[in-house]
């Protein structure tokens, strides 16, 4: 048994220590069941000079840059539960280990909608989603996650427990540190509790789907749909599946408004299928959950979408590879699923080539289910100017002076 595991078990008990792996490297995962245990584990890490990776459900640890030399993962899944739900005010506060499904259920029971609608909500935790900065499939309608985080309580590596923001829908008191922590990937703190803004629960949900022979036709129809006055929850083009591309448009809101939007969109799309209620939800969930398969995500300003897709096509041709894509032209993202990767050198070259080509096409690229060697050699912060990078390093040094939290941003590992 490793020394790290032994000490962790001494601290919080044998049954509270599991394992997880990043890129094939296995390490202990400590499940804290109380804030006191979180503090105790951080104290242990400080005493032993061990680097820690804060983990939610663990599904996104391998996304983006690799944490540098972590010794154990610290999960707060045991810290769950809603601490405040203000139905009339449209806010919810919960401990970081609460699952998104549980929070969505509470919100729904009061007639509210929880955003982000993320992949795998049964296991995705509030803290993990915020740490990873994940916006869900409903981003087109509701905006990015960081706009909905109202406040947070966190613990820094030195044991300081501090809050920022609050539980109010409007509040500019003090620094918005919760915005800094959102998407910080555990670099700065462990999130203990967070508050989110909720939205009105929809009276009606439906999805419209249409199938096309070419990606360009599907995208042209998606763009036409986006140019209408309708406010879809999402507009996705997926494919190719059996040589076809599918456009899916999700609508939600007041019944009469959704009906008008449906008619307006069907008029533009021509032949299409309308899915109502549960069938619509199933279609949207299926789109949402495909995110977990993505090898990489490319984000670009809408005007750059054409160039990104052209770069993708060219690279796929060079490597004689195939890919399935989930394209969201409204928020200008492309999730690329490169098929049948087995981490062979040729596959790595393909992923690496695609990532670089998309970066060169001005896309911001996040590697997800990519081979470790590719992630190790890819610097997503390459587009960040030196002065900004220096400030990030300075913030890290100020909030985590001993470098206790693994740092995927300012010093990603190089193999």
């Amino acid at each position, binding site marked *: 048994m490793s020394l790290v595991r032994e000490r962790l078990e001494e601290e919080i008990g044998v049954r509270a220590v599991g394992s997880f792996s990043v890129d094939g490297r296995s390490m202990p995962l400590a499940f804290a069941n109380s804030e006191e245990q979180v503090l105790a584990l951080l104290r242990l890490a400080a005493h032993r000079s061990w680097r820690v990776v804060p983990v939610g459900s663990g599904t996104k640890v391998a996304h983006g840059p690799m944490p540098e030399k972590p010794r154990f993962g610290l999960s707060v899944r045991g810290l769950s539960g809603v601490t405040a739900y203000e139905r009339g005010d449209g806010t919810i506060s919960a401990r970081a280990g609460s699952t998104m499904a549980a929070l969505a259920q509470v919100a729904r029971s009061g007639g509210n909608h929880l955003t982000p609608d993320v992949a795998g909500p049964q296991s995705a935790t509030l803290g993990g989603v915020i740490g990873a900065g994940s916006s869900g499939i409903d981003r087109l309608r509701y905006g*990015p996650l960081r706009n909905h985080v109202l406040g947070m309580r966190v613990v820094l590596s030195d044991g300081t427990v*501090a809050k920022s923001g609050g539980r*109010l829908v*409007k509040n*500019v008191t003090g620094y918005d540190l919760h915005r800094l922590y959102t998407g910080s990937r555990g670099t700065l703190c462990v999130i203990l509790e967070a508050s989110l803004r909720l939205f009105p629960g929809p009276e009606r949900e439906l999805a419209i789907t249409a199938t096309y022979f070419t990606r360009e036709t599907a995208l042209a129809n998606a763009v036409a749909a986006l140019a209408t006055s309708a406010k879809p929850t999402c507009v996705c083009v997926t494919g190719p599946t059996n040589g076809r591309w599918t456009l899916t448009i999700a609508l939600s809101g007041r019944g*009469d408004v959704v009906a008008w939007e449906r008619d307006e969109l069907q008029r533009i799309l021509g032949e299409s299928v309308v899915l109502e209620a549960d069938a619509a939800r199933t279609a949207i969930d299926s789109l949402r959950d495909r995110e977990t398969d993505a090898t990489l995500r490319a984000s670009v300003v809408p005007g750059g979408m054409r160039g990104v897709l052209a770069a993708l096509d060219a690279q796929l041709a060079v490597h004689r590879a195939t890919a399935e894509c989930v394209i969201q032209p409204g*928020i200008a993202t492309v999730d690329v699923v490169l098929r049948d990767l087995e981490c062979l050198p040729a596959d790595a070259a393909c992923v690496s080539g695609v990532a670089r080509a998309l970066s060169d096409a001005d896309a911001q690229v996040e590697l997800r289910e990519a081979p470790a060697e590719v992630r190790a050699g890819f610097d997503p912060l390459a587009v960040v100017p030196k002065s900004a990078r220096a*400030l990030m390093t300075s*913030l*890290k040094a100020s909030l985590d002076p001993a470098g206790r939290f693994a740092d995927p941003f300012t010093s990603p590992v190089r193999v």
Partner: protein
Amino acid sequence: MDASVAEGLRAIVGDAGLATSRARRVPYECDGLAYARRVPDVVLLPRTTSETARSLAFLHERGIPIVPRGAGTGLSGGSTPVEGGVLLSTARMRDVIEIDVLNRFARVQAGVVNVDLTHACEHHGLFYAPDPSSQKACTIGGNVGENSGGPHCFKHGTTTQHVVGLVFVTAAGEVVDLSRPSVDPVGLDLVGLFVGSEGTLGVATEITVRLLPAPPATGTLLAIFRDLDHACDSVTDIIAARLEPSALEILDQRTIAVVEASVLAAGYPKDAAAVLLVDCEGTHVEVESTMRAIEPIVKRRGAFELRHARTVAERTQLWAGRKGAYGAMGRIAPDLYVSDAVVPRTRLRELVRATTEICEKRGLRVANVFHAGDGNLHPNIAYDRRDKDELARVLDAGDEILRVCLAAGGSLTGEHGVGIEKIAGMSWQFTREDLAVMCRARDAFDPDRRMNPGKLLPVRACMETRSRPPRGEAHEVRT
């Protein structure tokens, strides 16, 4: 201040970029918080990011404090040079650099006036959403500093939700260019931290903002009440019914009287105890659907008359009264203290009543005009700063209002910022640990704390972080 400082700055920004005579410096002695004043030692008006960077590097070498300022319309003393030093005005940085219609963003210099940006893009069918009451004068850079809101941020969110890129200059004169628009921040969200930092992290010189498509339809409804409580309750009910108007604003009787007596008269009935102004944006179907759902709610709560704006002119007139309310208050007193607390939207009635009672028991004249949909109260206390006794009562009332709102789960400020006005209140809302972490974040940008000193963060909290071990050394974990 040593004359050589002014000369060194003049070499960078030229004569047009420097104000040294007292006559030219006095207008910068305060912002909208009129009772706190200090004339800056020098006023610097750079034209570009480069001039700003060179000036700040020059001042960095000499350890001189810098106070950034937009148009000076702030209401919390955020641009008052309480510790002297150089006041840096963005008044000469007025260029709209780029409007990207396809990607729906605009890149502007910090001194561009808020409403001018919307004017610059409206012929493309786009607009910039944050609309503070001072939008005809306030600047985008000032809005970034304060994370400003406005009536329509109920639907669209405050400034931070609209800023997608920044160029700012640190206290040391380093240019940080984060102007490349991206779907999500790359690395740590420096832009998110910077917005609302009240000039304590640096000077924003160029801002990239999101533009929104102009809605195909906008509906405006004026609901008239005989009781302010009922107007508040109707807002609580509209939100609880999960309706999504774009603005929900309340004006009380005193505000109505003042507005109607001014050139901004909007036709509000003078015998009303309160009016609720509702805007809905979207498709015609959406606007009609939302309005149709709101009408029975406000009627049930006692609205005795509903007026729908039928034309753009009617809508503009109804809103002119709301937007001009602060200016109209000048009719009853030379100075106005605008409180800015936020409260849970389920407790509007009791807290509006409480704030009014707090003022009335001190013999103060208070008028309420507020962003009811966001729970953002604005008790406006009319006073004369030359009357020391009255000023003391105003400040006392202001403190009690904040304490009452905090006790109800509220916050010190919803859009005006902390500045110097609410700096003592920071330790009512936050613990020492909370404030110490904010100070540590500030130190990453400005370890000498020369950017806008005396604002936002209480000195004592920051002094405590000074006693921490130096960076890089392991800290003892608090148990």
